[in-house]
């Protein structure tokens, strides 16, 4: 093992020696630079590996042959080694990224880069306060030098602002250091920490020291200078500035906190959280990509600073959490800056250029997921552990603010991703070359590898090391294959997984599993219509299914949450594929993440920091916390089921998705929320808060959703939106059923799980087929398609009969159970809404079938063909199932009924033969079917007997008001179909919820716009901000310490 000092020696030595190579041999100089950086990287990586595997112990390196505190010493432990590896590798890649500039400038530039990397490494290793100062100054000077590499003349201004602030930092730092030395008689960090301090003024000295280091982190609001650098510097350098310098600066704060003492931690937390939230808010209004990344960097550093401030409660998890966040940040930010080097335009929507290259999209998605902290990346694990620790320590406000910040960060990052995927690609395009792509992909690989490592650490559940996730990865590899082959593989994978696991599930899980896994496979049949390669579809879809599969497998909170997030990510990418879905996918993502954070908080509250916490221990939560856990989890789950108030993401997301995606996200994905609610209520049962029974609240929300969803649905002109609102209504029913908290209520909800999957999938596929042929989703532009698309018509017909609950199809079973269920329940008022929702639902369903298939056929549609056969196949399977399920509901429900009975300890339904009886009524599906069929057939036969020779006439052959209509359009009564209804009840359509969320968004954006005016571009103002920050924190801190 070579000594880590060599990192410094090699860096410096090479920098000095470059002058010997002669100014004309630039390539040689560049080669030497690369070699030196590679050697430095190699040393750090070797140490990292050795330390992690236990082959080496933390190294204490003494210089000058004396022991500390009398000589400067260095240390390399695991944290240091990891940071060193990050720093040196970033440096190596940065040299590659900057190669053109470096070769142009020659020796000087290369030397500066080498010294910068050397200095950052030194900063990471050193244990001496004044040495810290020297390295910081070296970094500052080198930064000021490298900023000049940019071709942007504004970089000069940025560099100068940076130097001005650097001077102020230096002054504060020196004064702080010398007084700390005076108080402690030592400059060695460990020595200071070990010695108790009694001297007056030591706290103030420590304050100056800390605040100077904190300003190095570019905390809000003392960070205008740094943002200018991010905006104008060469991105190859910005990557170093953000990833390497930022991480090292954090590490220094962390080092100094030990001698400073725990009383400074709250201050750091406060600064960090403020910086995190405020930077992210300001970033909302940013449209320059690099400045946006700058704000994001500042925010991320603030987040880690807050984590440093929480080290007292994190205990052993501290390194894991902080490290996860830092490394995620470093890798992702470096990667994004490198990508920014390839994108020619500077506006966010110029990133649409990357769309042409699928690997770039993958890279972009990876980096964003890392920043937001989504699985399987380290930030996700870190976020989880952080939440657990914070809740265990009762620091809920900190957690709430951090989650808020993450949410805002997700907002602009995913909005940006949406731009990249959906906006028109700019002409300027991309200047991709092998080297830039190579280093970007090195970052991508590093990101996934870190995800694996973070999961593989003992005591953690490795999200990536599960069969479904491996399958997802496999589908990345399959991407070059044609879509049809991948589709076979996907269906095979789903069915294979199902056969593997279904034996272990209890009946209720089994129902969910059938709907989610083989149910997904049935919908995938429709994907056979797609030709080409369909890049991006299968990894996303399989990620969603993997999430669902893991959700069912989950036994602990963590597994459940991880699965939940995976499912969300996958479905987000799926939804984003739709033509017009950009804003809707974003709002889907944000609501989902918001809901997920509610879950995170709820789980953390429930477990009280104990890990792993089994799902079925949820019932053991103490009586004081249980209602709160209930509230948080319900919010999380209801976001997924799109309960009224949290629903505004759904219509757009479901309606704008692709033809075969809509049924997946509607028919299948919504059930995840129900699954969660089932799990929660099974364990928690009824809970009351302030005397209010929370299940009653849920029932009300369910009823309101059922009613308003239906009302909104009837006013839609867009067929898919109509179906989407209908889903809100249907999920409202299910929610109501669950919230009844009795046997039949739950059975009702289970019935909805099955039925809604079947008929909503079927209807979405049918409408999708129509859309494929007519190229419109507006129903009033269709009409009369029954003769052209008979199969589609049949499936819609069966679908709406089933959905409206008209006997004999399976929807009626749901209604019957519903009536029996409410007989037991004490709830009466919300029932009014439910009662009304039923007929209202009939309205929109009729409209759907009428305006599309009946009425007059439009001229442009006369030549249409039936929908593609692969769209029809799953529909026909569903039709067959609906009829079968209508006759024999017992095949699915009887076992579940028994299982629910084992939960509630009762058995209200009696299954005798094929008839079902309850305490109140009875239901014989076979008899119903037979009677209706016999009557129908008899009447039909009579009609045929009389009218078999009826003359077929054109549909258009009609007369009204004694006139022949002129064009079919004029006689298709379809637009604003329920005009009287709108007149009477149109006020229910008022977009109250949308306005509310719109207000929240506008408020945030307004705050962002207002706040960013603060960055007026004047270097002196920035310097004054720094002073203002120092003084403000000083006043606060002294108030706190005194």
């Amino acid at each position, binding site marked *: 093992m070579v000594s880590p000092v060599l990192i410094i020696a090699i860096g410096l030595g090479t920098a000095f020696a470059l002058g010997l190579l002669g100014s004309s041999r630039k390539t040689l100089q560049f080669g030497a630079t690369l070699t030196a950086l590679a050697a430095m990287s190699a040393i750090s990586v070797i140490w990292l590996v050795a330390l992690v595997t236990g082959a080496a112990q933390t190294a204490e390196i003494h210089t000058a042959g004396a022991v500390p505190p009398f000589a400067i010493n260095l240390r390399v432990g695991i944290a240091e080694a990891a940071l060193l590896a990050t720093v040196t590798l970033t440096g190596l890649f940065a040299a590659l990224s900057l190669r053109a500039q470096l070769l142009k400038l020659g020796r000087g530039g290369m030397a500066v880069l080498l010294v910068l990397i050397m200095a950052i490494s030194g900063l990471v290793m050193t244990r001496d306060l004044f040495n810290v100062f020297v390295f910081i100054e070296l970094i500052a000077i080198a930064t000021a030098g490298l900023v000049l590499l940019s071709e942007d003349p504004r970089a000069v*201004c940025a560099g100068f602002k940076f130097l001005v602030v650097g001077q102020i930092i230096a002054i504060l730092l020196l004064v702080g250091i010398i007084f700390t030395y005076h108080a402690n008689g030592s400059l060695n960090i460990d020595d200071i920490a070990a010695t108790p301090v009694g001297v007056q003024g030591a706290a103030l000295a420590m304050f100056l020291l800390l605040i100077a280091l904190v300003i190095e982190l570019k905390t809000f609001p003392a960070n205008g200078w740094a943002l200018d650098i991010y905006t104008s510097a060469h991105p190859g350098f910005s990557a170093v500035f953000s990833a390497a310098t930022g991480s090292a600066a954090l590490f220094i704060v962390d080092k100094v906190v030990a001698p400073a003492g725990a009383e400074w931690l709250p201050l750091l937390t406060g600064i960090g959280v403020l910086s995190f939230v405020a930077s992210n808010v300001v970033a909302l209004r940013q449209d320059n990509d690099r400045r946006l990344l700058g704000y994001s960097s500042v925010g991320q550093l603030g987040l880690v600073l807050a984590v440093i401030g929480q080290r007292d409660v994190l205990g052993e998890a501290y390194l894991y959490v902080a490290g996860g966040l830092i490394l995620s940040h470093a890798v992702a930010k470096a990667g994004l800056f490198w990508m920014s080097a390839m994108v020619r335009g500077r506006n966010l929507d110029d990133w649409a250029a990357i769309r042409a290259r699928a690997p770039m999209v993958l890279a972009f998605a990876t980096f964003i997921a890392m920043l937001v902290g989504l699985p399987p990346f380290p930030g996700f694990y870190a976020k989880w552990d952080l939440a657990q620790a914070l809740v265990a320590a009762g620091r809920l406000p900190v957690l709430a603010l951090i989650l808020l910040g993450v949410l805002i960060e997700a907002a602009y990052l995913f909005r940006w991703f949406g731009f990249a995927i959906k906006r028109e690609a700019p002409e300027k395009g991309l200047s991709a070359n092998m080297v830039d792509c190579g280093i970007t992909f090195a970052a991508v690989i590093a990101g996934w590898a870190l995800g694996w490592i973070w999961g593989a650490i003992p005591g953690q559940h490795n999200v990536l090391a599960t069969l479904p996730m491996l399958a997802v990865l496999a589908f990345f590899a399959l991407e070059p294959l044609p879509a049809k082959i991948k589709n076979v593989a996907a269906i095979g994978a789903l069915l294979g997984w199902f056969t593997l696991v279904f034996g272990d599930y209890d009946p209720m899980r089994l129902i969910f599993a059938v709907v989610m896994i083989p149910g997904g496979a049935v919908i995938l049949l429709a994907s056979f219509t797609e030709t080409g390669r369909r890049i991006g579809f299968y990894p996303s879809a399989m990620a969603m299914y993997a999430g669902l599969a893991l959700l069912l497998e989950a036994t602990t909170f963590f597994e459940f949450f991880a699965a939940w997030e995976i499912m969300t990510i996958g479905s987000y990418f799926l939804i984003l594929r739709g033509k017009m879905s950009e804003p809707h996918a974003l709002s889907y993502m944000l609501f989902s993440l918001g809901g997920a954070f509610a879950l995170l908080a709820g789980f953390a509250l429930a477990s009280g920091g104990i890990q792993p916490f089994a799902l079925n221990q949820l019932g053991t939560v103490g009586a004081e916390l249980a209602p709160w856990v209930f509230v948080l989890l319900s919010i999380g789950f209801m976001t997924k089921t799109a309960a009224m108030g949290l629903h505004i993401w759904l219509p757009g997301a479901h309606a704008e998705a692709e033809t075969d995606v809509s049924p997946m996200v509607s028919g299948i994905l919504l059930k995840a929320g129900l699954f969660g609610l089932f799990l929660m209520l099974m364990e928690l049962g009824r809970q009351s808060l302030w005397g209010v029974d929370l299940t009653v609240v849920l029932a009300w929300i369910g009823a309101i959703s059922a009613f308003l969803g239906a009302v909104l649905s009837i006013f839609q002109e867009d067929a898919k939106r109509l179906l989407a609102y209908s889903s809100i209504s249907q999920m409202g029913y299910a929610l109501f059923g669950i919230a009844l908290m009795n046997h039949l209520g739950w059975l009702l909800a289970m019935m909805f799980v099955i039925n809604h999957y079947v008929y909503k999938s079927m209807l979405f596929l049918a409408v999708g087929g129509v859309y494929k042929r007519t190229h419109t989703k507006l129903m009033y532009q269709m009409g009369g398609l029954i003769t052209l698309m008979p199969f589609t018509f049949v499936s819609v017909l069966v679908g709406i009969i089933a959905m409206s609950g008209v006997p004999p199809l399976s929807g009626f079973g749901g209604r019957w159970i519903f009536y029996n269920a409410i007989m037991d329940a004490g709830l009466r008022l919300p029932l009014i809404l439910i009662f009304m929702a039923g007929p209202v639902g009939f309205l929109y369903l009729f409209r759907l079938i009428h305006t599309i298939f009946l009425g007059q056929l439009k001229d442009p549609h006369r030549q249409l063909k039936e929908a593609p056969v692969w769209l029809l196949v799953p529909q026909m399977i569903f039709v067959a199932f609906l009829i079968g399920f209508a006759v024999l509901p017992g095949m699915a429900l009887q076992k579940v009924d028994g299982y629910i009975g084992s939960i509630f300890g009762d058995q209200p339904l009696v299954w005798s033969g094929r008839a079902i009886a309850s305490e109140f009524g009875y239901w014989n599906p076979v008899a119903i079917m037979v009677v209706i069929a016999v009557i129908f057939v008899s009447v039909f036969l009579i009609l045929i007997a009389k009218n078999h020779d009826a003359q077929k006439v054109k549909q258009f052959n009609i007369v009204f008001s004694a006139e022949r209509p002129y064009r079919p359009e004029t006689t298709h009564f379809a637009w604003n179909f329920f005009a009287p209804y709108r007149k009477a009840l149109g006020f229910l359509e008022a977009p109250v919820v949308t306005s509310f969320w719109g207000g929240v968004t506008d408020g945030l954006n307004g705050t962002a716009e207002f706040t960013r005016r603060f960055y007026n571009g*004047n270097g002196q103002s920035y310097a004054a901000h720094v002073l203002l920050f120092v003084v403000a924190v000083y006043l606060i801190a002294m108030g706190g310490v005194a």
Partner: protein
Amino acid sequence: MSQIALTCGFILILAGLYGALTNRDILRMIVAFTVANTGVNIVLVAVGYLPGRTAPILDSAVPVAEAAQRIIDPVPQALVLTAIVIGLGITALMLAYAYRLFRLRHSLDISNFTELKW
């Protein structure tokens, strides 16, 4: 003695900062920073000063055995030496920047260099 030097150093720092924050001329800002840096150096040295002792050089006047009782703290001096040199480096760099900025806009007024903002 050290109180006097300390106060003097702090006043120089504040004066320097005041100058740097109120003078819009870039060169004057740099001048102000050199004043502030000098102030910092004075503070550093003042902190290492022990009344009634001599410079930390062992010669005939200060034999090794008595050194600990006779000399003042050498550490701050060592630090100041470093700080002075670093200060010069930064000043030189800022001057070079000032020249670049001047070439960019033919102005030395800091408020003319604000196109990067928000």
